[in-house]
């Protein structure tokens, strides 16, 4: 029932040594601070902003972004979480997934500028699910997307507005984001993924 479970397929559990580190420690903090400035610039201030993290690591990142926005602008920007599991298009390809909480501060997205926050942008399918789920909650004035890592290989016409790091990868690789809140350390690691390469050959 650990929240980390769903993103790591069996037999490919990342160890502290596997692969190489592409972002570590303070670099993540710097990337988030830059994104915070970008968000304020695009939005011309903090008004109507609502940060929604996609569980599980997106929620931690959203909270950090909220803190960074507070440091820069001195205002409290509401931060929540948006579980998109029920809107995924791959539910029937996997065992039943555990649901994470959805918590929208104020219970309203109407008229807000929603910034979706996730750790890794890959196929774009999670973001597609998040957009559908938002539509059921109401009608935001605008929706933007902030991700820590964009690793390419999109399968849908979706792009991020704010990116911590663009990371060219092959499909046979895996990107692991570890965060202090959940994993005890801040780092982004990239490594070959035997399971995924196997899957591709089929």
């Amino acid at each position, binding site marked *: *029932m650990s929240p980390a479970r769903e993103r790591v397929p069996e037999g490919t559990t990342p160890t502290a040594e596997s692969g190489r580190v592409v972002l570590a420690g303070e670099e993540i903090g710097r990337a988030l601070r830059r994104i915070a400035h970008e968000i304020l610039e695009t939005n011309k201030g903090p008004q109507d902003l609502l940060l929604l993290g996609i569980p599980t690591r997106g929620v931690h990142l959203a909270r950090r972004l909220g803190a960074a926005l507070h440091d820069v602008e001195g205002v409290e920007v509401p931060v929540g979480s948006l*579980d998109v599991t*029920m*809107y995924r298009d791959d*539910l*029937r*390809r*996997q*065992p*039943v*997934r*555990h*649901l*994470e*909480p*959805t918590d929208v501060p104020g*219970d309203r997205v109407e008229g807000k500028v929603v910034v979706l926050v996730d750790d890794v942008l890959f196929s774009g399918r999670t973001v597609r699910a998040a957009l*559908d789920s938002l539509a*059921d*909650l*109401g009608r935001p004035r605008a929706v933007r997307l902030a991700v820590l890592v964009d690793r390419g290989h999109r399968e849908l016409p979706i792009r991020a507005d704010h990116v911590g790091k663009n990371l060219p990868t092959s499909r046979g690789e895996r990107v692991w984001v570890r965060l202090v809140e959940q994993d005890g350390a801040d780092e982004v690691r990239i490594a070959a993924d035997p399971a995924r390469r196997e899957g591709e050959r089929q």
Partner: protein
Amino acid sequence: MRHLLSIGDLSREEILELLDTAESMHEVQHREVKKLPTLRGRTIINFFFEDSTRTRSSFELAGKWLSADTINLSGKGSSVSKGESLRDTVMTIDAMGVDLMVVRHMASGAPAQIASWTGCSIVNAGDGTHEHPSQALLDAYTMRRRLGGDLAGRHVAIVGDLTHSRVLRSNLLCLRTLGASVTLVAPPTLMPSGIGPWADTDGFGTSYELDDVLPTVDAVMMLRVQRERMSGGFFPTPREYAVRYGLTPARLARMPEHAVICHPGPMNRGLEISADAADAAQSLVLDQVSAGVAVRMSILYHLLAGEGSTS
């Protein structure tokens, strides 16, 4: 999970996962748009051979809010009343391409029997005097929400017509699996025969004296006196039952302040539960109904959403 036939088939982890999922589903109930696309294209049949208001309507709502197509069939007014056998009726429905059947039947074991005939998932929505698993799950969900924690170490008294109660069996199994201690309270005539050895091996208590049990409970579950199943002779008069075993205002005062009251409904006010108790602040009766939809959404999600689920 392929079927939900008995709480006895579930591990503690599975029960908690179902309850946790229900928490997420509950939140949908308060949205403006009460609809999730998760079970789009799936078909669910509610097959009710016995009368039901809350179970059937909450299963129907649960299916609809998850975007499944749901239809209701009742024993009355279907081919069953023309003399068709249960197997033929069920196989006919199955042949239409149904993904899941919610079955209520007056015969204990009917859902399990149906599960052995068809390829679709079966949910037992109450079979005879055997089990009613979704009711036990929603009771556990409601109590957990109000009392906090996972009910381990909590003391729950189940009171009333135990002999005819399927809710009792499911609740007993569910609460024991979650680690709660349980005391069954009933007049000797309504205590199931052979409960003694079961109580010894499974570690729950029995009592004929409600007043002795009440001061230590965290929750008391009042079961309905099922007049339709009583061929008579279980207690002299309803009045006497109410005096000895009803949750009267005086008994309400004997309960600890934090303790809650559950009743699976429909209530016989003035018989097993007084109006004071039914409408008291500790009463969870309406919370149970509202939890019913969330818990049933969770059940449908776990049976139909994952890979390898029936098609």
